[in-house]
């Protein structure tokens, strides 16, 4: 176990002294500033008398716009961060000739993958927590409405799901880094998967509903996107369809009541477990491949 932390610490140090991390943080924090600027423009028009969660609006404003968490996180930031942190995890060590030396030290092979994964998760968490805290801080300064307990829970939920989703992309990239000797190949394979799922979501908007539902249950982008919608928008328009039906039947106009946090969690439970399962699957395959593999330095 302690060896795992040695690997993790070393990898963390690697991340924190690499250009890669600096560029990633720039990407993430610039995105954060843009999101908050966008929110600043939209929030006034979006907050109405009925808005209960004003602070949460900071994170959910401009839903359809490009510069929002709902677009940037599932489609761009988290895949990019995850892939960047994982695509050369194993094969760079192999190419460098350090893997033979590393694995001749007294540590289990899975400690290498786990340590790297853990370091990646920590780095990812720092980035995600950073952007969320940054938006929260700037938003608080800007709108002056403090978050309620419920909103804080929801934000924690959002951060948690985001980390899982980022971890999925990282584990996928690590999987490719185990399978492909060449760093360029694993990077390309990861990017190809990203584009594939990206396109799948775009296609999902055009196909009949049954297929669209199927896609939304398989594509990690949709799984995550759906989950954070429920987290960030307690009375999401998705609920309005049912309300509309009710209104047509009874003629009674009701505003969709915001879901409670626990209810929201219940709703996104399938998405969450699917994401975790996908991550675990990538891991299992990486382990199976890596554990019994011959480690030759040439």
């Amino acid at each position, binding site marked *: 176990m302690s060896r795992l932390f040695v*690997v993790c610490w070393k990898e963390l140090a690697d991340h924190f002294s690499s250009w890669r991390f600096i560029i990633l943080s720039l990407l993430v924090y610039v995105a954060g500033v843009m999101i908050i600027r966008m929110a600043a423009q939209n929030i006034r028009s979006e907050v109405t008398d009925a808005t209960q969660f004003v602070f949460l609006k900071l994170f959910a404003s401009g839903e359809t716009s490009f510069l929002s968490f709902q677009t940037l996180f599932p489609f761009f930031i988290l895949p990019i961060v995850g892939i960047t942190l994982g695509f050369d995890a194993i094969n760079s060590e192999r190419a460098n000739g*350090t893997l033979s*030396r*590393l694995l*001749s*030290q*007294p540590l289990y092979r899975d400690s290498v993958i786990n340590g790297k994964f853990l370091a990646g998760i920590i780095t990812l968490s720092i980035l995600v927590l950073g952007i969320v805290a940054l938006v929260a801080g700037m938003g608080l300064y800007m709108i002056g409405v403090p978050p309620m307990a419920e909103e804080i829970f929801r934000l924690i939920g959002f951060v948690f799901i985001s980390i899982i989703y980022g971890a999925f992309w990282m584990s996928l990239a690590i999987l490719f880094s185990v399978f492909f000797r060449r760093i360029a190949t694993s990077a390309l394979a990861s990017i190809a998967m990203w584009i594939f799922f990206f396109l799948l979501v775009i296609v999902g908007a055009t196909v009949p509903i049954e297929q669209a539902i199927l896609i939304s249950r398989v594509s990690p982008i949709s799984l995550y996107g759906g989950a954070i919608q429920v987290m960030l928008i307690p009375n999401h328009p998705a609920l309005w369809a049912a309300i509309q039906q009710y209104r047509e039947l009874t003629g009674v106009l009701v505003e969709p009541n915001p879901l409670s946090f626990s209810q929201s969690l219940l709703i996104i439970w399938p998405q969450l477990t699917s994401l975790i399962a996908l991550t675990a699957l990538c891991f299992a395959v990486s382990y199976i491949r890596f554990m019994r593999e*011959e*480690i030759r*330095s040439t």
Partner: protein
Amino acid sequence: MSQQAVIETEKLTKRYHDFVAVDKLNLRIDEGEVFGFLGPNGAGKTTTILMLLGLTEPTSGTARVYGYDPIREPLKVKRIVGYMPEKIGFYDDLTARENLDYTAWLNGLSREEAARKMSELLEMVGLAKDAEKKVGKFSHGMKQRLGIADVMIKDPKVAFFDEPTSGIDPEGVDQILSLITDMARKKMTVVLSSHQLHLVQKVCNRVGILAKGHLVLEGSVEQLGRESLGGGKFRIQLQVADPATKLIDAIKSINGVIDVESSNDLLLVSCNDDLRPQVARAVVDSGSLLVQMKIEEYGLEEIYLKYFRES
């Protein structure tokens, strides 16, 4: 055979599809030996070492390092084994010290102990000046020396060096080999794999020659030389104007001379040491005229050539 075998293999076999890289290898290496694991490229040396380290699984047969199975008990083996791979690599953007530190840490050394050992070893391998330089800027020879320090930092009981001399200039080779023999003096078992027989034979007290996955010869250098050429380590060839039997007897009586053969005016003296001065005096004392004299070192080279010419 009361001594503990450091390495023991039994019918160790590695097959890649149809290709047999290591074929039923039986090998025993005892404590404190400097074992030369020799053979041409592709003979299966690296594959054997990988199996001993648990970095690859044997197809059949068993390997034991201090009695531990490298596949079942990898950590026990790796705690006592040092390995310098064929193509040694370090983290290019870490300094020499940071690279060693990582190894030390992975081996559970305390910070103070690690720091002390690192300074000591970097001094020893002549990299004290470059300790804070990034390894990415190191030459191949420097990396090789750092590799030795990297092996040493965990104080292994047995160390494997896979081709430590390839791609290094002659002085570098001497330096590296003397570092390795220094290690041997610390009661450490050393396995030195190389295809450059003539470079490493001097430092090995036992060699095993591997060809096409088979161990074709095994034994001490002297023993092998004697066995194959029936003589000592050196052969002095001298041409004398009129060789007399008295002269042959005189040479034979020199301490250290094993055998003397004569054919016409040519005398072949096999001996364990460089006895040219003594032989020259004997010739002069016998009143003969010395036309020319040269010394040949016998060693594994001939054996090696012999065995590999055949194959």
